[in-house]
């Protein structure tokens, strides 16, 4: 079986590139459908949409559904939703999201909640984001991403002095982000600004893989092309493994919702990046080398 997969990987690399392409197309469809139905590419959390979140670390001895129901009754216009926070399978607190942005309204809301559960000031945290900032923040992050891509492209050209690697790194970063976002959307979770930072962190990790294959395949001349690919794959796989275990450990044990989201996005991204780097990028580079050999042979 393994030999068969190896054989396909070695000989049918152009055909295999359909897999990442298909994933990209499906992801773009998902994002498109998401946009058409909700008006946004992603499920934006409070920090990106505007609203407020109260995070309570005390045990409230009430189910989140029950609490949500009663708060919705008490504050019908506040768009309340309640989440239970957990770490390593244990409940660690409760987060109450609402669409409230006005200081006076939030104060009344917080007062009602803290009175009901006899909360002290130290028992809860409040985050309030105005809708204009939220909207702006998201747009800004998109602009920042475009600039990031451009700068990355320039750096790759300056470093490798080969156009195809620059194109490959940018394409890989684009695919990583789009596919990860689409899968993230399917989880139903809401995106926090830290999640966007996680997308950038993911690019940071994936760049390592890209640079390894580029330098081993294009710059080196030791061994055969396939030997170099397998060498790079071995190094890349070790890197992915170490990051994966660290991310999994964090995902299971970390309490902070924000860090948890960072880890989830990194996890999805790392898995996506395996396909993007080792099928798509290796494919593009081999294709490029093949063409180069042909033209130099002629």
């Amino acid at each position, binding site marked *: 079986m393994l030999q068969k997969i190896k054989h396909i990987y070695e000989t049918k690399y152009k055909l295999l590139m359909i897999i990442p392409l298909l994933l990209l197309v499906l992801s773009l469809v998902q994002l498109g459908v998401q946009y058409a139905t909700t008006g946004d590419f992603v499920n934006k959390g409070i920090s990106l949409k505007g609203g407020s979140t109260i*995070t309570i*670390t005390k045990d409230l001895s009430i189910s989140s559904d029950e609490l949500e129901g009663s708060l919705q009754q008490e504050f019908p216009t506040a768009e309340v939703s309640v989440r239970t926070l957990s*770490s390593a399978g244990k409940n660690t607190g409760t987060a109450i999201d609402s669409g409230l942005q006005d*200081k006076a309204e939030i104060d009344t809301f917080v007062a009602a909640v803290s009175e009901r559960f006899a909360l002290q*000031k*130290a028992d*809860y*945290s*409040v*985050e*309030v984001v*105005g809708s*204009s*900032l939220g909207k*702006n*923040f998201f747009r*800004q992050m998109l*602009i*920042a*991403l475009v*600039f*990031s*891509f451009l*700068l990355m492209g320039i*750096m*790759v050209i300056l*470093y*490798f002095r080969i156009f195809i690697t620059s194109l490959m*790194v940018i394409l890989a970063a684009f695919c990583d982000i789009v596919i990860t976002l689409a899968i993230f959307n399917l989880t139903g979770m809401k995106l926090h*600004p*830290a999640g966007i*930072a996680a997308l*950038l*962190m993911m*690019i*940071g*990790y994936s760049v*390592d893989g890209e*640079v390894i294959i580029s*330098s081993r395949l294009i710059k*080196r001349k030791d*061994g055969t092309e396939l030997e170099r690919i397998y*060498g790079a794959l*071995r*190094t890349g796989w*070790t*890197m992915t493994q*170490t*990051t994966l*275990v*660290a991310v*999994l*450990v*964090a995902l299971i*044990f*970390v*309490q902070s919702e*924000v*860090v948890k989201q*960072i880890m989830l996005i990194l996890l999805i991204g790392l898995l996506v990046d395996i396909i993007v780097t080792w099928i798509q990028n290796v494919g593009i580079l081999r294709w490029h080398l093949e063409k180069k050999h042909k033209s130099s042979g002629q």
Partner: protein
Amino acid sequence: MGNKITKIFLNWRVLLLVTLLFFSILAIRPNIFGTEGVEINSMLANSSVAEAGLSNPASKVLPTARERILSVNGEETNTVEEYYAVVSQLQANRTIRLETNEKAYTFLAPQSSNGKVDLGIKVKEASFSNLRMGLDLEGGTRVLLQPVGGISEEDLETTVDSLKERLNVYGLRDIVVRSASDLSGNDFILIEIAGVTEDEIQELLAKQGKFEAKVGNETVFFGGKKDITYVCRSADCSGIDPYLGCQQFDAGYHCRFAFQISLSPEAAQHHALITKNLKTISEQGSCYLAEDLALYLDDVEVDRLRIGCELKGSTTTDIQISGSGAGIAQADAVNDALKNMKKLQTVLLTGSLPVKLEVAKLDTISPNLGKEFLQNVMLVGVLALVAVSGVVLYRYRKVVIIFPMLLVMLSELVLILGFAALAKWNLDLASIAGLIVVVGTGMNHFIVITDETLRKEAEALDWKTRIKNALFIIMGAYVINLGSLIPLFWAGAGLLKGFALTTIVGMSVGVLIARPAYAAIVRILLEE
């Protein structure tokens, strides 16, 4: 082996790493054995202990060098709870001896409005190192204010200064007030206050604080230093009005406050001019001017005062300002009145902001949550390290590589923290995310170095080429990452700046110092 270890420590790359590590630990100065006493977090400027010579800690002072209260009246105060328990036992108008790690202060216990002794000092657990914990780890308030309409650079600076001054009136330490802008050119003001913050402070920040005292339609004076030369905040000329005090109403209590201010000669002259031609009226045997002095805060009338006939046309500079507060119980009404008084005093002292501000984002993070978060992150860090070591050990099966790999990785972390302590960074959630990236890419690069030197294909190459090959990959990944991080400095009103900064500094330290040192160690250990 002994020969190899000597060789390692004589290698200039390793020596550089060790030297910087030494300086980093020096900068962090961890107190492994704990510290005596509680740290002074903030102090009211006009409290009796301030008069005794204790000063508000300056934010520039290193956390481990801050003044700590060791005992109050001989009773040791090693925890925050112990301190507040001792203070709650104090009696008013008795002598108090407060001993700190610097000196001893003796003063008379002041009496606050609710009958209890309040020294006006807020304390926190003593810092265990020079690392400054940001809001996400220590708790506090983060407010992002956005000016309504456009704002000039000059006005933005004035606003930042006025806001700083307002916060100083409240005796707050560890405040960050800075302007920030985003990619679309919008201006913001970011304020971060460590520790639990009272609601009234948050409210005060977004207030423009335009204070006007009007007679009829004419403004007699404005808030701020131009018109007001002095605002009394001590107990002898400010507080609950001794003549009117508190009164009971149907729904609760109503208390009046009053405090003295001094007008500038110009403002007093203006007052004389306006009141000169006013008619006088007589009410219940007292003579008043026909128009009242109405006090407006942000265009809303907050109080209306009668003007005695003796002030007609006079260039008096001493004026009493008053207002009120309400509450269900009398104590609530007193607190509300004193709170309103303080707000009014603050805007009179600091003047109005040049623009109206809107709260764009407000976070209050509970200190408990912060503490738990820090402990949890440390635990997760250790677990992740164990898991990663397991994977690396399984892959290479050479302890001789794992050991230096983990040591150099930890030293990278110490170098970043040392830099953070030196640069007086506040470590927050964004910086922790940055640390995760640095450690993650660091691990990747150690693997690259190890693989480049150990792989079969490289056997034909000399060690210099192998290391050069590895560093080529690492350097490439570094410059490309640098490109992706730079735009984050400006995106989203600087909220991701901490992330970008930590990642860039961390990666630079790693790529330029720690990872080459690891490469040198691997070479010495494995070279036959």
